[in-house]
């Protein structure tokens, strides 16, 4: 193959037909309050780890719902489980349980 000096990029869009749903379904099943999230960002605004890193549970929940799992581990590893997000969530999502479930799901073999 000749050396072209450039390469064809795959599309960067989120494909909801082919996205990875296993973690989303796992959390929904084990913590139904996860479905109530409206991505308002109250959790991310108050996040202790958010002061020092890019962590925001809003962002993590959003990525999981769209199947964009690759960035989730780096973000969620910052979480200290301080529970401030649970105190402020206006939808009463059980955020600490969601975070523990995400950790568990990330260790599961890819289905």
């Amino acid at each position: 193959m000749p050396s072209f000096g450039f390469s064809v990029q795959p599309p960067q869009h989120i494909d909801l037909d082919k996205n990875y749903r296993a973690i989303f379904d796992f959390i929904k099943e084990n913590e139904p309050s996860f479905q109530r999230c409206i991505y308002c960002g109250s959790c991310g605004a108050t996040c202790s780890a958010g002061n020092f890193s890019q962590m925001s549970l809003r962002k993590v929940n959003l990525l999981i719902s769209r199947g964009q799992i690759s960035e989730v581990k780096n973000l969620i590893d910052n979480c200290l489980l301080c529970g401030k997000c649970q105190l402020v969530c206006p939808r009463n999502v059980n955020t600490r349980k969601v975070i523990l479930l995400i950790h568990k799901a990330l260790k599961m073999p890819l289905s």
Partner: protein
Amino acid sequence: MPRIAVIGGGIAGMEAAIRLSNLNFEVDIIEKSFSLGGNVNNWHVLFPDHSPARLLIDQLKNQLRDKVNILLGTEVVRTEYNNQQYILHLSDGTRLTFDAIVITTGFKVFPAQRKEEYGYSIYPNVITSAQLEELFQSEKPIHTADHRMANRIAFIHCVGSRDDKIGNRYCSKVCCVTAVKQAMEVAQRNPGSEIFLFYMDLRMYDRHFEDLYFQAQTQYGIRFVRGRLSEVSEKSDARLYLKLEDTLLGKPLRLTVDLLVLMVGMEPADNSPQLANLFSIPVGTDRFIQPENFHLYKNRTSRPGVFVAGCASGPKSIGETLADARSAAFEVYNFFNNN
């Protein structure tokens, strides 16, 4: 006894006519179609309590019975003002004299083919929220145009509203809660289906609306995605390929659905600007009739004796429309009893 013309026989016109008649006025309803009830005739069940629309119309019709002159299939083509009275010339040739006018011409739904990129009237599986309501009348599962069970349905908010390109900058107010209501109705009829709502903002402004939102998420697993639809295409199997922006993630989103529902907004009725012209009353830049002011005199217009009620002066829910109609009737009463 003063004689009042109520122009428009939808629920605003019917309620105003009932109240005026109870206040001992002589009332004529002038309705351009051949039935009363207006847009509500096309709805199935109403938010927030899922009460049947048919029941509301029947209750109003019962109260109207024998009290009011109903003129169907005709509209006002010319007006004259003489001696503090309005002379209306109707399209069927009649000429009637009235002491006051209540304009209740309501709204029409936005013609969705104007959003060319959404493929309405081009791809058969793109329908409007009004058409979906019609499908609800039978309690059967919702199918696509080619008779398959719809397993993946997307709703698009703000079609024809909040859109400067279309020329409608205003919000049509009730479409967000209608989308939530309709999404739940589809989920009930098509169990196991995946339903997405693509919104810019969610206007859950009234009592119980947030509860409906909560119920949609928790009971039916309906997915709410903040994002805008840019283009609809058809795949070789007649399913629709949607191109959207996922606003919160800031990335483009693509998905294939069986059915696409466009939440069409409200526009003033076709004859409303012409009617406003006939009575020399102003309309706003959004083409809805301008009331005297927005607080104390919402039903008065710049012309004494000409009143407006219901969606003719801007998008409203059914409850607000009926309250507005009652208020207009009372303003008519004040007009004759404070002079």
